[in-house]
């Protein structure tokens, strides 16, 4: 009996190995390793790493550049997450009732999400081209002066945000379509009998019932916007004058450009801490609002 128990134990472990080996190599070990590196001073090349204690963190917190990137990151998160959610909700409300052509609208609106960020960012940088790009040509038609979009520190972040929102709005729309579709119609009918108008129905019934989706999207989109890289790399490379340098871009530059591994690892730890906190919050709230769905 004990033998078969042991055998089934081993068999189960064998089933997990094809996933657990690469997970350990490329997830769990790197995670532990980056914590270790954040307490070390290292330049990637030299064979020795020296213990630095909390110096990397201290250096980071004293570095004005770090706060500048933090500010850009917050602007980027707020400027991408909220419009993506608002646009997704608005489009889902427009599409929620079955109507002719609905599937075509949905397909077109969702399509940017599927395409490679690098390729579509290149298309957008052609639109933003200052001399003959579409954006400035449209302004010129209206007699307005052109803007040097990606080269202007006041506009560069807006340009990156437009691309990000354009790419993701359809994605959040799909979630909202499902959420709105599962609002029980009798609730809405009952409210209608009580004389509620469209806005009241939306505010008092639909919006509260889809709040788990709203919260889920908020967390997932914030985590993904903290990790935005491709569009920034193609459009602005963090410039001009650091106006689009997010914390992730800062991390990338300190690691692979300046080779300050310890400092970069400290940035990674902060990034991980932020994302883990957001995920835990979402698990916790998900537990509490489970009765909604």
């Amino acid at each position, binding site marked *: 009996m004990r033998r078969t128990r042991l055998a089934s134990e081993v068999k*189960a472990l064998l089933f997990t190995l094809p996933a657990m080996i690469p997970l350990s190599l490329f997830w769990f070990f790197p*995670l532990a390793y980056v914590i270790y590196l954040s307490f070390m001073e290292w330049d990637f090349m030299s064979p020795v790493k020296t213990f630095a204690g909390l110096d990397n963190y201290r250096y980071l917190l004293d570095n004005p550049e770090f706060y500048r990137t933090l500010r850009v990151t917050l602007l980027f998160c707020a400027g991408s997450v909220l419009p993506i959610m608002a646009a997704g909700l608005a*489009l889902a409300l427009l599409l929620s009732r079955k109507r002719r052509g609905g599937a075509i609208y*949905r397909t077109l609106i969702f399509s940017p999400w599927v395409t490679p960020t*690098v390729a579509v960012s290149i298309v957008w940088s052609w639109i933003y081209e200052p001399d003959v790009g579409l954006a400035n040509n449209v302004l010129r038609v209206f007699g307005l002066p052109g803007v040097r979009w990606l080269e202007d520190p006041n506009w560069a972040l807006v340009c990156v945000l437009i691309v990000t929102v354009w790419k993701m709005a359809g994605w959040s729309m799909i979630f909202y379509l499902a959420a709105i579709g599962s609002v029980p119609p009798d609730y809405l009918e009952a409210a209608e009998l009580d004389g509620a108008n469209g806005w009241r129905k939306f505010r008092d019934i639909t919006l509260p019932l889809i709040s788990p989706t709203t919260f*889920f999207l908020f967390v997932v989109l914030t985590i993904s916007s903290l990790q935005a890289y491709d569009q920034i790399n193609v459009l602005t490379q963090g410039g001009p004058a650091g106006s689009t340098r997010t914390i992730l871009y800062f991390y990338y530059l300190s690691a692979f450009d300046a080779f300050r591994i310890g400092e970069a690892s400290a940035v990674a730890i902060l990034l991980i801490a932020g994302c*883990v906190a957001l995920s835990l919050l979402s698990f916790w709230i998900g537990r509490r609002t489970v009765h909604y769905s």
Partner: protein
Amino acid sequence: MSKNRGLRRLLTHFLLAAAAVLMAFPFYWMAMSALKTNDEIWRFPPTLWPHSPLWSNFADAWDAAPFARYMLNSVLVGAVIVLIQIVNSGMMAYALTHMAFRLKGVFTALTLVGYMVPVTAVYLPGYVVLSRLGLLDSYAGLILSNCVSIFSIFLVRQAFMQISHELVEAGQIDGASHLRILWTIVFPLARSSFAVLALITFIEQYNNYFWPMLITKNPDLQLVSAGLRSFFVQGGAYGLKWPLIMAASAFTILPLLVLFLLTQKTIMRSVNLSAGASKG
């Protein structure tokens, strides 16, 4: 009343059409710019339709950089990763849902922790690991470092949890091994989840840029995004090759748009499934 309703329907259609046009317009503009001559691109006001479509731009762009190689790299690496993930996610999820073992709780917790960690944050230590393994600048490195996905495991686990354990027990009574039960009984029942896994993983890998760019320097190993980007940087430096750059972007994007049009039902369903998967 009915007049009001008609007006509202018209307004809704107008807003939806405006949104759809806005979303699709960059693709249209890309295609049109790819067909223009350099002269026409510099003309004001811009033309919405090329005077005489220059189809040779596509061939010129295709020959200007090894795009065939880039695309083959992306498709090949993506396809191999999909196959490996089907196997290892299937086996892992099967163990977590239909087998009893002591470390089950620990492994579930570990994957959950892994799920919360942002991928990009472990790129630096991941790079060090890959270099120690001697896998930088190799197909093996590109494939192995992406060959497991916690999202995929969760997705399959979610599907396997819906499958009655009695089916597994019935298979065991018939003397079938776990591997056999997994691939002949459980897998077919969850094939729609595996289809989602395959599509999402392939799209993700085809579009992957940051990590492959970090771990490969050899131009022969570049995936399509990195290849396109270096073509863009070279062409952009002179600022004259926009039609070719747009043509190259177009044939990079096209396979995915076609894939999306063919499988849009599955892809849109997968978006919603991903919410379920991440709820654990």
